[in-house]
Protein backbone atom coordinates (compact mmCIF):
# COMPACT_ATOMS: atom_id res chain seq x y z
CA UNK A 1 0.00 0.00 0.00
CA UNK A 2 1.17 3.49 -0.84
CA UNK A 3 1.23 5.30 2.53
CA UNK A 4 1.37 8.91 1.20
CA UNK A 5 -1.87 8.32 -0.72
CA UNK A 6 -3.43 6.80 2.37
CA UNK A 7 -2.39 9.81 4.47
CA UNK A 8 -3.68 12.33 1.93
CA UNK A 9 -7.04 10.62 1.49
CA UNK A 10 -7.33 10.05 5.22
CA UNK A 11 -6.67 13.74 5.82
CA UNK A 12 -9.28 14.74 3.24
CA UNK A 13 -11.82 12.31 4.69
CA UNK A 14 -11.37 13.71 8.18
CA UNK A 15 -11.69 17.24 6.81
CA UNK A 16 -14.88 16.26 4.99
CA UNK A 17 -16.24 14.70 8.16
CA UNK A 18 -15.55 17.82 10.23
CA UNK A 19 -16.59 20.35 7.61
CA UNK A 20 -19.36 18.81 5.56
CA UNK A 21 -21.10 16.07 7.58
CA UNK A 22 -23.21 18.57 9.56
CA UNK A 23 -24.75 19.92 6.37
CA UNK A 24 -25.53 16.44 5.07
CA UNK A 25 -27.37 15.49 8.26
CA UNK A 26 -30.94 14.29 7.91
CA UNK A 27 -32.60 15.17 11.17
CA UNK A 28 -30.10 14.10 13.80
CA UNK A 29 -28.48 11.44 11.61
CA UNK A 30 -25.22 12.43 9.99
CA UNK A 31 -23.00 10.26 7.82
CA UNK A 32 -19.65 8.92 9.00
CA UNK A 33 -17.24 9.11 6.08
CA UNK A 34 -14.28 8.03 8.19
CA UNK A 35 -15.73 4.60 8.89
CA UNK A 36 -16.22 4.16 5.14
CA UNK A 37 -12.57 5.02 4.55
CA UNK A 38 -11.62 2.47 7.22
CA UNK A 39 -13.68 -0.20 5.46
CA UNK A 40 -12.17 0.67 2.09
CA UNK A 41 -8.62 0.33 3.40
CA UNK A 42 -9.39 -2.77 5.44
CA UNK A 43 -10.99 -4.45 2.41
CA UNK A 44 -8.00 -3.86 0.16
CA UNK A 45 -4.80 -3.25 2.09
CA UNK A 46 -2.46 -5.80 3.65
CA UNK A 47 -3.43 -6.77 7.19
CA UNK A 48 -0.83 -4.83 9.17
CA UNK A 49 -1.16 -1.64 7.13
CA UNK A 50 -4.96 -1.82 7.29
CA UNK A 51 -5.01 -2.21 11.08
CA UNK A 52 -2.56 0.63 11.57
CA UNK A 53 -4.38 2.96 9.16
CA UNK A 54 -7.76 2.22 10.76
CA UNK A 55 -6.39 2.90 14.21
CA UNK A 56 -4.80 6.15 13.05
CA UNK A 57 -7.96 7.36 11.34
CA UNK A 58 -9.94 6.61 14.49
CA UNK A 59 -7.44 8.44 16.65
CA UNK A 60 -7.63 11.54 14.47
CA UNK A 61 -11.42 11.42 14.42
CA UNK A 62 -11.30 11.39 18.23
CA UNK A 63 -9.14 14.49 18.09
CA UNK A 64 -11.89 16.25 16.12
CA UNK A 65 -14.59 15.33 18.60
CA UNK A 66 -15.68 16.15 22.12
CA UNK A 67 -15.58 12.43 22.92
CA UNK A 68 -12.58 10.98 24.79
CA UNK A 69 -9.46 10.10 22.86
CA UNK A 70 -9.36 6.43 21.89
CA UNK A 71 -13.06 5.73 21.42
CA UNK A 72 -13.06 5.76 17.62
CA UNK A 73 -9.51 4.38 17.49
CA UNK A 74 -10.63 1.35 19.46
CA UNK A 75 -13.82 0.96 17.38
CA UNK A 76 -12.07 1.25 14.03
CA UNK A 77 -9.31 -1.08 15.18
CA UNK A 78 -11.98 -3.69 15.90
CA UNK A 79 -13.76 -2.93 12.61
CA UNK A 80 -10.52 -3.35 10.67
CA UNK A 81 -9.75 -6.65 12.41
CA UNK A 82 -13.12 -8.03 11.30
CA UNK A 83 -13.05 -6.61 7.76
CA UNK A 84 -9.46 -7.75 7.15
CA UNK A 85 -10.54 -11.25 8.17
CA UNK A 86 -13.33 -11.09 5.57
CA UNK A 87 -11.10 -9.91 2.70
CA UNK A 88 -10.99 -13.34 1.07
CA UNK A 89 -14.65 -14.24 1.47
CA UNK A 90 -16.44 -11.12 0.25
CA UNK A 91 -16.90 -9.70 -3.21
CA UNK A 92 -15.18 -6.36 -2.65
CA UNK A 93 -16.83 -4.43 -5.46
CA UNK A 94 -20.42 -5.45 -4.80
CA UNK A 95 -22.68 -2.67 -3.43
CA UNK A 96 -24.35 -5.14 -1.08
CA UNK A 97 -20.95 -5.93 0.44
CA UNK A 98 -20.37 -2.22 0.93
CA UNK A 99 -23.79 -1.73 2.51
CA UNK A 100 -23.54 -4.69 4.88
CA UNK A 101 -19.95 -3.99 5.93
CA UNK A 102 -20.77 -0.31 6.55
CA UNK A 103 -23.84 -1.22 8.58
CA UNK A 104 -21.92 -3.77 10.60
CA UNK A 105 -19.02 -1.37 11.17
CA UNK A 106 -21.23 1.54 12.14
CA UNK A 107 -23.20 -0.64 14.53
CA UNK A 108 -19.98 -1.95 16.07
CA UNK A 109 -18.82 1.65 16.55
CA UNK A 110 -22.21 2.48 18.04
CA UNK A 111 -21.92 -0.41 20.48
CA UNK A 112 -18.53 0.82 21.69
CA UNK A 113 -20.02 4.31 22.20
CA UNK A 114 -23.02 2.85 24.06
CA UNK A 115 -20.63 0.82 26.23
CA UNK A 116 -18.78 4.04 26.98
CA UNK A 117 -22.06 5.75 27.94
CA UNK A 118 -22.90 2.82 30.24
CA UNK A 119 -19.49 2.74 31.92
CA UNK A 120 -18.43 6.40 32.01
CA UNK A 121 -21.72 8.24 31.61
CA UNK A 122 -23.50 10.58 31.48
CA UNK A 123 -26.15 7.89 31.14
CA UNK A 124 -28.25 9.57 28.52
CA UNK A 125 -29.97 7.28 26.09
CA UNK A 126 -31.45 9.95 23.85
CA UNK A 127 -28.46 10.02 21.40
CA UNK A 128 -28.73 6.26 20.79
CA UNK A 129 -31.56 6.42 18.22
CA UNK A 130 -29.64 9.06 16.29
CA UNK A 131 -26.53 6.86 16.40
CA UNK A 132 -28.60 4.06 14.91
CA UNK A 133 -30.05 6.30 12.18
CA UNK A 134 -26.54 7.60 11.46
CA UNK A 135 -25.41 4.00 11.03
CA UNK A 136 -28.19 3.37 8.54
CA UNK A 137 -27.44 6.62 6.70
CA UNK A 138 -23.75 5.72 6.49
CA UNK A 139 -24.62 2.25 5.21
CA UNK A 140 -26.87 3.72 2.51
CA UNK A 141 -24.08 6.05 1.38
CA UNK A 142 -21.50 3.26 1.47
CA UNK A 143 -22.05 1.89 -2.08
CA UNK A 144 -21.60 5.41 -3.52
CA UNK A 145 -18.59 6.43 -1.43
CA UNK A 146 -16.85 3.05 -1.61
CA UNK A 147 -17.65 2.88 -5.32
CA UNK A 148 -15.92 6.24 -5.84
CA UNK A 149 -12.97 5.19 -3.70
CA UNK A 150 -12.79 1.93 -5.68
CA UNK A 151 -12.52 3.94 -8.88
CA UNK A 152 -9.39 5.68 -7.56
CA UNK A 153 -7.95 2.67 -5.76
CA UNK A 154 -5.00 2.71 -8.17
CA UNK A 155 -3.64 5.68 -6.24
CA UNK A 156 -3.29 3.48 -3.17
CA UNK A 157 -1.39 0.77 -5.08
CA UNK A 158 -3.03 -2.03 -3.16
CA UNK A 159 -1.46 -5.40 -3.90
CA UNK A 160 -3.74 -8.29 -4.61
CA UNK A 161 -3.67 -11.03 -2.02
CA UNK A 162 -2.24 -13.51 -4.55
CA UNK A 163 0.73 -11.24 -5.24
CA UNK A 164 1.25 -10.72 -1.55
CA UNK A 165 1.40 -14.44 -0.87
Amino acid at each position, binding site marked *: MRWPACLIFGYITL*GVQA*GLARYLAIGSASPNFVVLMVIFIAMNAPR*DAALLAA*FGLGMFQDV*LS*QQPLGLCALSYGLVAMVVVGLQQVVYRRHPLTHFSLALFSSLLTMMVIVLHIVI*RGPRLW*SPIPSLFYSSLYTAVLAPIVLGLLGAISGAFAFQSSRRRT
Partner: protein
Amino acid sequence: MSYLRFNHVFFGLMTLALLAAFVFSPTASQRVQGQVQGIFAPVAWPLSKIGAWAHNRVAPRQVVDDGSPSSPRSSDELRRENEDLRISLRNLRGQLERLAELETQRSMVGDARPFCTPFSVVGSDAGHRDSLLLSGSSLAGLREGMPVLSAGGIVGRLSAVGVGGARVRLVSDPGFRFEARFARLVRQPDGTLDFPLLPGESQVVDGRGDGVMMMRITEKEKIAADLRKDDWIVLSDRDWPLVLTNYRVGRVDSILPTRDPGFVQIIIKPDQNLEQLEEVMVMNKEKRNEQQGASGE
Protein backbone atom coordinates in the same frame (compact mmCIF):
# COMPACT_ATOMS: atom_id res chain seq x y z
CA MET B 1 8.90 -12.65 13.97
CA SER B 2 8.03 -9.20 12.58
CA TYR B 3 4.42 -10.39 12.31
CA LEU B 4 4.42 -11.17 16.00
CA ARG B 5 6.01 -7.82 16.73
CA PHE B 6 3.30 -5.94 14.84
CA ASN B 7 0.62 -7.86 16.71
CA HIS B 8 2.20 -6.80 19.97
CA VAL B 9 2.36 -3.17 18.88
CA PHE B 10 -1.24 -3.19 17.67
CA PHE B 11 -2.44 -4.90 20.83
CA GLY B 12 -0.56 -2.26 22.83
CA LEU B 13 -2.19 0.57 20.85
CA MET B 14 -5.65 -0.92 21.29
CA THR B 15 -5.07 -1.31 25.02
CA LEU B 16 -3.92 2.30 25.20
CA ALA B 17 -7.03 3.41 23.30
CA LEU B 18 -9.21 1.34 25.65
CA LEU B 19 -7.60 2.92 28.69
CA ALA B 20 -7.82 6.44 27.23
CA ALA B 21 -11.49 6.02 26.38
CA PHE B 22 -12.71 4.14 29.43
CA VAL B 23 -10.27 4.73 32.27
CA PHE B 24 -8.27 7.93 31.94
CA SER B 25 -9.79 11.32 32.74
CA PRO B 26 -11.31 13.07 29.69
CA THR B 27 -9.48 16.27 30.64
CA ALA B 28 -6.18 14.52 29.92
CA SER B 29 -7.24 13.68 26.38
CA GLN B 30 -8.68 17.17 25.85
CA ARG B 31 -5.22 18.63 26.36
CA VAL B 32 -3.93 16.50 23.50
CA GLN B 33 -6.96 17.23 21.31
CA GLY B 34 -6.51 20.99 21.66
CA GLN B 35 -3.04 20.84 20.18
CA VAL B 36 -3.76 19.09 16.89
CA GLN B 37 -7.41 19.59 15.90
CA GLY B 38 -6.60 22.67 13.80
CA ILE B 39 -4.52 20.74 11.29
CA PHE B 40 -7.69 19.68 9.47
CA ALA B 41 -8.88 23.28 9.04
CA PRO B 42 -7.42 23.65 5.49
CA VAL B 43 -9.88 21.02 4.27
CA ALA B 44 -12.70 21.39 6.80
CA TRP B 45 -13.02 25.18 6.56
CA PRO B 46 -13.57 25.54 2.77
CA LEU B 47 -15.85 22.50 2.75
CA SER B 48 -17.78 23.98 5.64
CA LYS B 49 -18.23 27.24 3.71
CA ILE B 50 -19.35 25.38 0.59
CA GLY B 51 -21.71 23.27 2.70
CA ALA B 52 -23.15 26.37 4.39
CA TRP B 53 -23.63 28.10 1.05
CA ALA B 54 -25.37 25.07 -0.46
CA HIS B 55 -27.45 24.54 2.66
CA ASN B 56 -28.57 28.16 2.70
CA ARG B 57 -29.58 27.87 -0.94
CA VAL B 58 -31.59 24.70 -0.37
CA ALA B 59 -33.00 25.42 3.10
CA PRO B 60 -32.41 29.02 4.19
CA ARG B 61 -32.58 29.70 7.91
CA GLN B 62 -35.91 31.18 8.96
CA VAL B 63 -35.55 33.77 11.71
CA VAL B 64 -38.69 33.99 13.83
CA ASP B 65 -39.93 37.58 13.73
CA ASP B 66 -41.24 37.90 17.29
CA GLY B 67 -41.63 41.64 16.89
CA SER B 68 -44.26 41.39 14.18
CA PRO B 69 -45.72 37.88 14.00
CA SER B 70 -48.87 38.91 12.13
CA SER B 71 -47.16 40.80 9.31
CA PRO B 72 -43.56 39.66 8.99
CA ARG B 73 -41.27 42.22 7.49
CA SER B 74 -39.75 41.39 4.18
CA SER B 75 -36.08 42.05 4.84
CA ASP B 76 -34.08 39.34 6.61
CA GLU B 77 -31.56 41.98 7.50
CA LEU B 78 -34.16 43.99 9.36
CA ARG B 79 -35.34 40.94 11.26
CA ARG B 80 -31.87 40.01 12.41
CA GLU B 81 -31.15 43.56 13.45
CA ASN B 82 -34.38 43.64 15.40
CA GLU B 83 -33.57 40.33 17.05
CA ASP B 84 -30.15 41.60 18.10
CA LEU B 85 -31.66 44.75 19.57
CA ARG B 86 -34.13 42.77 21.63
CA ILE B 87 -31.39 40.49 22.93
CA SER B 88 -29.40 43.54 23.97
CA LEU B 89 -32.40 45.05 25.74
CA ARG B 90 -33.19 41.89 27.68
CA ASN B 91 -29.57 41.47 28.50
CA LEU B 92 -29.29 44.99 29.88
CA ARG B 93 -32.40 44.55 32.01
CA GLY B 94 -31.05 41.33 33.50
CA GLN B 95 -27.77 42.96 34.28
CA LEU B 96 -29.47 45.91 35.94
CA GLU B 97 -31.46 43.64 38.24
CA ARG B 98 -28.39 41.76 39.35
CA LEU B 99 -26.31 44.87 39.67
CA ALA B 100 -28.92 46.48 41.90
CA GLU B 101 -28.59 43.46 44.18
CA LEU B 102 -24.85 43.78 44.27
CA GLU B 103 -24.87 47.59 44.58
CA THR B 104 -22.31 48.01 41.89
CA GLN B 105 -24.38 49.87 39.37
CA ARG B 106 -23.02 51.74 36.40
CA SER B 107 -19.57 50.24 36.32
CA MET B 108 -20.29 46.98 34.55
CA VAL B 109 -23.43 47.65 32.56
CA GLY B 110 -23.10 46.96 28.89
CA ASP B 111 -23.76 44.66 26.02
CA ALA B 112 -21.86 41.38 25.96
CA ARG B 113 -20.57 42.08 22.46
CA PRO B 114 -17.76 44.45 23.38
CA PHE B 115 -16.28 41.59 25.38
CA CYS B 116 -16.42 39.12 22.52
CA THR B 117 -14.27 38.30 19.53
CA PRO B 118 -15.79 36.64 16.46
CA PHE B 119 -14.31 33.34 15.28
CA SER B 120 -15.23 31.29 12.23
CA VAL B 121 -16.51 27.78 12.71
CA VAL B 122 -14.19 25.39 10.93
CA GLY B 123 -16.27 22.28 11.40
CA SER B 124 -18.51 20.35 13.70
CA ASP B 125 -17.93 17.34 15.93
CA ALA B 126 -16.54 14.43 13.93
CA GLY B 127 -18.00 11.98 16.43
CA HIS B 128 -21.41 11.72 18.05
CA ARG B 129 -21.14 14.63 20.49
CA ASP B 130 -22.31 18.27 20.22
CA SER B 131 -19.31 20.51 19.61
CA LEU B 132 -17.83 22.93 17.08
CA LEU B 133 -14.26 23.42 15.93
CA LEU B 134 -13.13 27.04 15.80
CA SER B 135 -10.52 28.82 13.73
CA GLY B 136 -9.01 30.38 16.88
CA SER B 137 -6.43 28.88 19.22
CA SER B 138 -4.68 29.61 22.48
CA LEU B 139 -2.41 31.93 20.50
CA ALA B 140 -5.45 34.17 19.90
CA GLY B 141 -6.06 34.42 23.63
CA LEU B 142 -8.64 31.68 23.88
CA ARG B 143 -8.81 29.68 27.11
CA GLU B 144 -10.86 26.73 28.27
CA GLY B 145 -14.16 27.64 29.87
CA MET B 146 -14.70 30.92 28.00
CA PRO B 147 -18.39 31.46 27.12
CA VAL B 148 -19.36 31.33 23.46
CA LEU B 149 -22.34 33.24 22.06
CA SER B 150 -24.15 33.81 18.80
CA ALA B 151 -26.86 36.20 17.71
CA GLY B 152 -29.34 33.54 18.83
CA GLY B 153 -28.02 33.32 22.39
CA ILE B 154 -25.66 31.16 24.40
CA VAL B 155 -23.80 28.56 22.33
CA GLY B 156 -21.58 26.86 24.92
CA ARG B 157 -18.15 27.05 26.46
CA LEU B 158 -14.66 26.41 25.09
CA SER B 159 -13.62 22.93 26.11
CA ALA B 160 -10.36 22.02 24.38
CA VAL B 161 -8.03 24.86 23.51
CA GLY B 162 -4.48 24.52 22.27
CA VAL B 163 -2.10 25.93 19.74
CA GLY B 164 -3.75 23.72 17.12
CA GLY B 165 -7.29 25.02 17.56
CA ALA B 166 -10.21 25.39 19.89
CA ARG B 167 -13.43 23.51 20.41
CA VAL B 168 -16.76 24.72 21.76
CA ARG B 169 -18.75 22.31 23.85
CA LEU B 170 -22.34 23.15 22.94
CA VAL B 171 -25.01 23.68 25.59
CA SER B 172 -26.80 20.62 24.23
CA ASP B 173 -23.82 18.28 24.64
CA PRO B 174 -24.61 15.39 27.02
CA GLY B 175 -23.62 16.33 30.54
CA PHE B 176 -23.43 20.09 29.93
CA ARG B 177 -25.22 21.72 32.88
CA PHE B 178 -26.26 25.24 33.79
CA GLU B 179 -29.05 27.06 35.61
CA ALA B 180 -31.77 28.94 33.78
CA ARG B 181 -35.15 30.58 34.16
CA PHE B 182 -38.19 30.93 31.95
CA ALA B 183 -39.16 34.11 30.14
CA ARG B 184 -41.80 35.08 27.63
CA LEU B 185 -42.20 37.71 24.95
CA VAL B 186 -45.39 39.64 25.71
CA ARG B 187 -46.96 42.36 23.60
CA GLN B 188 -48.18 45.26 25.71
CA PRO B 189 -51.45 47.12 24.94
CA ASP B 190 -49.43 50.05 23.56
CA GLY B 191 -47.82 47.70 21.04
CA THR B 192 -44.41 47.51 22.67
CA LEU B 193 -42.81 44.20 23.48
CA ASP B 194 -41.89 43.12 26.96
CA PHE B 195 -39.78 40.18 27.98
CA PRO B 196 -40.68 39.39 31.60
CA LEU B 197 -39.17 36.53 33.55
CA LEU B 198 -41.80 33.98 34.55
CA PRO B 199 -42.33 33.23 38.24
CA GLY B 200 -40.09 30.58 39.73
CA GLU B 201 -36.55 29.92 40.82
CA SER B 202 -33.60 29.04 38.58
CA GLN B 203 -33.65 25.41 37.46
CA VAL B 204 -30.91 23.10 36.27
CA VAL B 205 -30.80 22.46 32.52
CA ASP B 206 -28.99 19.37 31.22
CA GLY B 207 -27.66 18.83 27.71
CA ARG B 208 -29.05 15.62 26.21
CA GLY B 209 -27.23 15.48 22.87
CA ASP B 210 -28.56 15.96 19.33
CA GLY B 211 -29.29 19.64 19.94
CA VAL B 212 -31.66 18.97 22.82
CA MET B 213 -31.62 20.11 26.45
CA MET B 214 -33.85 19.02 29.28
CA MET B 215 -35.16 20.53 32.49
CA ARG B 216 -37.13 18.76 35.18
CA ILE B 217 -39.54 20.80 37.28
CA THR B 218 -42.54 20.09 39.48
CA GLU B 219 -46.13 20.36 38.26
CA LYS B 220 -46.62 23.19 40.76
CA GLU B 221 -43.76 25.17 39.27
CA LYS B 222 -45.11 24.60 35.79
CA ILE B 223 -48.56 25.86 36.79
CA ALA B 224 -47.13 28.81 38.73
CA ALA B 225 -45.13 29.90 35.68
CA ASP B 226 -48.00 29.12 33.31
CA LEU B 227 -45.37 27.51 31.14
CA ARG B 228 -46.14 27.05 27.45
CA LYS B 229 -44.49 25.81 24.31
CA ASP B 230 -42.15 28.42 22.73
CA ASP B 231 -41.45 30.17 26.03
CA TRP B 232 -37.81 31.18 26.32
CA ILE B 233 -35.11 29.76 28.57
CA VAL B 234 -32.67 32.42 29.76
CA LEU B 235 -29.39 31.97 31.58
CA SER B 236 -29.49 32.56 35.32
CA ASP B 237 -26.33 30.97 36.59
CA ARG B 238 -23.78 32.54 38.91
CA ASP B 239 -21.00 30.41 37.44
CA TRP B 240 -21.34 32.36 34.19
CA PRO B 241 -20.26 35.98 33.72
CA LEU B 242 -22.66 38.53 35.09
CA VAL B 243 -22.97 40.21 31.72
CA LEU B 244 -24.72 37.10 30.38
CA THR B 245 -27.53 37.06 32.93
CA ASN B 246 -30.88 36.63 31.17
CA TYR B 247 -29.17 35.89 27.88
CA ARG B 248 -31.40 33.49 26.05
CA VAL B 249 -30.46 29.84 25.52
CA GLY B 250 -33.38 28.22 23.78
CA ARG B 251 -37.12 27.70 23.57
CA VAL B 252 -39.48 25.24 25.24
CA ASP B 253 -40.07 22.61 22.58
CA SER B 254 -42.39 20.35 24.55
CA ILE B 255 -43.60 19.62 28.07
CA LEU B 256 -43.80 15.94 28.83
CA PRO B 257 -44.99 13.97 31.84
CA THR B 258 -42.43 11.87 33.71
CA ARG B 259 -42.71 8.52 35.46
CA ASP B 260 -42.41 10.33 38.77
CA PRO B 261 -45.76 11.81 39.75
CA GLY B 262 -45.70 15.55 40.33
CA PHE B 263 -42.84 16.21 37.92
CA VAL B 264 -42.72 17.26 34.29
CA GLN B 265 -39.89 17.17 31.78
CA ILE B 266 -39.24 20.28 29.70
CA ILE B 267 -37.57 19.64 26.37
CA ILE B 268 -35.61 22.68 25.23
CA LYS B 269 -34.10 23.39 21.82
CA PRO B 270 -31.86 26.27 20.76
CA ASP B 271 -33.40 28.87 18.47
CA GLN B 272 -31.19 27.68 15.62
CA ASN B 273 -29.18 24.58 14.80
CA LEU B 274 -26.01 25.27 16.75
CA GLU B 275 -24.03 22.74 14.74
CA GLN B 276 -24.64 24.75 11.58
CA LEU B 277 -23.39 28.09 12.88
CA GLU B 278 -20.80 29.70 10.63
CA GLU B 279 -19.45 32.18 13.14
CA VAL B 280 -19.56 32.47 16.91
CA MET B 281 -18.51 35.12 19.44
CA VAL B 282 -16.07 34.03 22.11
CA MET B 283 -16.23 36.08 25.28
CA ASN B 284 -12.49 36.39 25.73
CA LYS B 285 -12.36 39.91 27.13
CA GLU B 286 -14.00 39.10 30.43
CA LYS B 287 -11.01 40.12 32.52
CA ARG B 288 -11.04 43.60 31.09
CA ASN B 289 -14.70 43.83 32.02
CA GLU B 290 -14.01 42.81 35.61
CA GLN B 291 -11.16 45.27 35.86
CA GLN B 292 -13.41 48.03 34.62
CA GLY B 293 -15.99 46.97 37.19
CA ALA B 294 -13.44 47.07 39.98
CA SER B 295 -12.22 50.51 39.00
CA GLY B 296 -15.82 51.72 38.85
CA GLU B 297 -16.38 50.62 42.44
